[in-house]
């Protein structure tokens, strides 16, 4: 993962079509176009797993059904704890058979329609619920050597708690870290970098102009009419965090994609 930083390779988030879509064919075509574009650029395609609890199709089934090319070094599958054990194993086995090795393990956002892994499902003892830590342990145990797993870091949570969680995640087998979106220099992320100099850290850059959508994540109200320049912020983040990779969330493929090529200098 350090190579992605050295070689200035972006992680580009791609949201799969939602289950409720009424224009599935169009959405599938758009997904395939975005995916292929990321592959051709040599970037990482990071495919989310029911992000924000919205029921969506899985990255692995999209790759299979749409017969998309798989370049193992360019794909990262998000995986959260809202699955049945059977679905979880299906996803992991598909990843393994396709050579996909990078996973981002998160606890995830649930919804009424999503099943939640129970500790007994994955042999987790002494815990009341399954978090990314238990999921990581399961993958390390049952799929030893098959995957390179990363985890999320939230600098907006209480710091001691977040660092304690990070210790558990790294002990469970995480080997890289991706932060929540940053829109300015963040002292907690600075301390994360100081504490784990040998762990590749990728910071998330918020590429939507709707910065107010981050209010809940950052923990303070961002007014709806706040002006925000994602490309300028991205350049600033490169300057502030030259030793970090960058994960682009909600990137505009029509308006922004061509602009990012020359941003990481």
């Amino acid at each position, binding site marked *: 993962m350090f190579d992605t930083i050295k070689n200035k390779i972006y992680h580009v988030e791609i949201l799969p079509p939602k*289950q*409720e879509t009424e224009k*599935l064919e169009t959405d599938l075509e758009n997904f395939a176009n975005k995916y292929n574009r990321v592959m051709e650029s040599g970037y990482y395609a990071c495919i989310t797993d029911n992000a924000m609890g919205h*029921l969506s*199709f*899985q990255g692995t*089934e*999209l790759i299979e*059904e749409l017969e998309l090319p798989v370049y193992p070094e360019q794909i990262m599958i998000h995986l959260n704890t809202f699955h*049945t054990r059977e*679905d979880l194993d299906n996803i992991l086995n598909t990843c393994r058979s396709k050579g996909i090795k990078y996973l981002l393990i998160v606890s995830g956002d649930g919804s*009424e*329609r*999503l*099943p939640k892994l129970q500790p007994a499902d994955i042999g987790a003892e002494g815990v009341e619920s399954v978090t990314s830590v238990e999921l990581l342990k399961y993958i390390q145990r049952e799929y030893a050597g098959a995957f390179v797993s990363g985890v999320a870091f939230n600098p907006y949570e209480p710091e001691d708690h977040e660092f304690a969680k990070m210790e558990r995640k790294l002990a469970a087998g995480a080997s890289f870290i991706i932060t929540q979106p940053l829109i300015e220099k963040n002292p907690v992320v600075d301390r994360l970098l100081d504490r784990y100099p040998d762990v590749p850290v990728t910071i998330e850059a918020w590429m939507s102009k709707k910065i107010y959508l981050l209010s809940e994540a950052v*923990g303070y109200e961002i007014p709806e009419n706040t002006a925000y320049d994602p490309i300028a912020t991205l350049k600033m983040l490169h300057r502030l965090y030259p030793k970090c990779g960058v994960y682009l969330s909600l990137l505009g493929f029509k308006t922004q994609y061509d602009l990012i090529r020359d941003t990481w200098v």
Partner: protein
Amino acid sequence: MKIVVCIKQVPAANDAKIDPETKRIIREGQKAVLNPFDTYALEEGVRLKSLLGGEVIALTMGPPKAEAVLREAISVGADRAILLSDRGFGGSDTWATSYALSKAIEKIGDVNLVICGKQAVDGDTAQVGPGIAAHLSLQQATYVMAIQDVTTESITVQRMHEEGYDICELHLPAVITVLKDINVPRVPTLKGRLASQKCDIPVWKPADIGAEPDKIGLDGSPTRVVRTQPPPARNTKSIRIEGTPQECAQALVKDLRLRSIL
């Protein structure tokens, strides 16, 4: 085993509007979804099929756009689906609806088990499942929270009530209505969704199922809706409390007491 799962398209919870004249839910132009309780009925049907073999048939009555929930049923494992749709069915109450569904079930033939969700979230009556059983003179169990055993001859279920649950054995064919405790519904796969878009869904009219005209629609409905009103919108405003954990806890308790919640 031939299993019929009766499902219903309902307005999305936040979109429900009521016609002030007719007192009925306005369905035109509203976002519609599969009745949440029916997802558990479908899952149970598909699960039983995987155990015993056979076929799962999704059945609904509604306007042409109700076909969408039948396709959703196929995407999660139903083998085929049938839509009852005709102006003659319009305005049916639960008795007329259950009559129409029972006639369709008779026409499907050799059905071993009918599964319904415990109720639809638009009408909240929980009457259609029992109505089907009554029209077909079948044994029934409502509020089923678990199936303990099932064979080609009988089904043993746990039926929830206020003080616990009863264990009931029913001879098949039978009707059950299920609670959400019974299973965890699967999420449709892309493969299933794509397959569901390609399949043909037959549309049956009253004459196709041998329904008597005076037993369906408004004429066949002994109940009349006198008054309905939408529930008050929920206040979802969130408040962020700042301070140390102790200060936050104290402020939270104080606020809850002021609101007479504590």
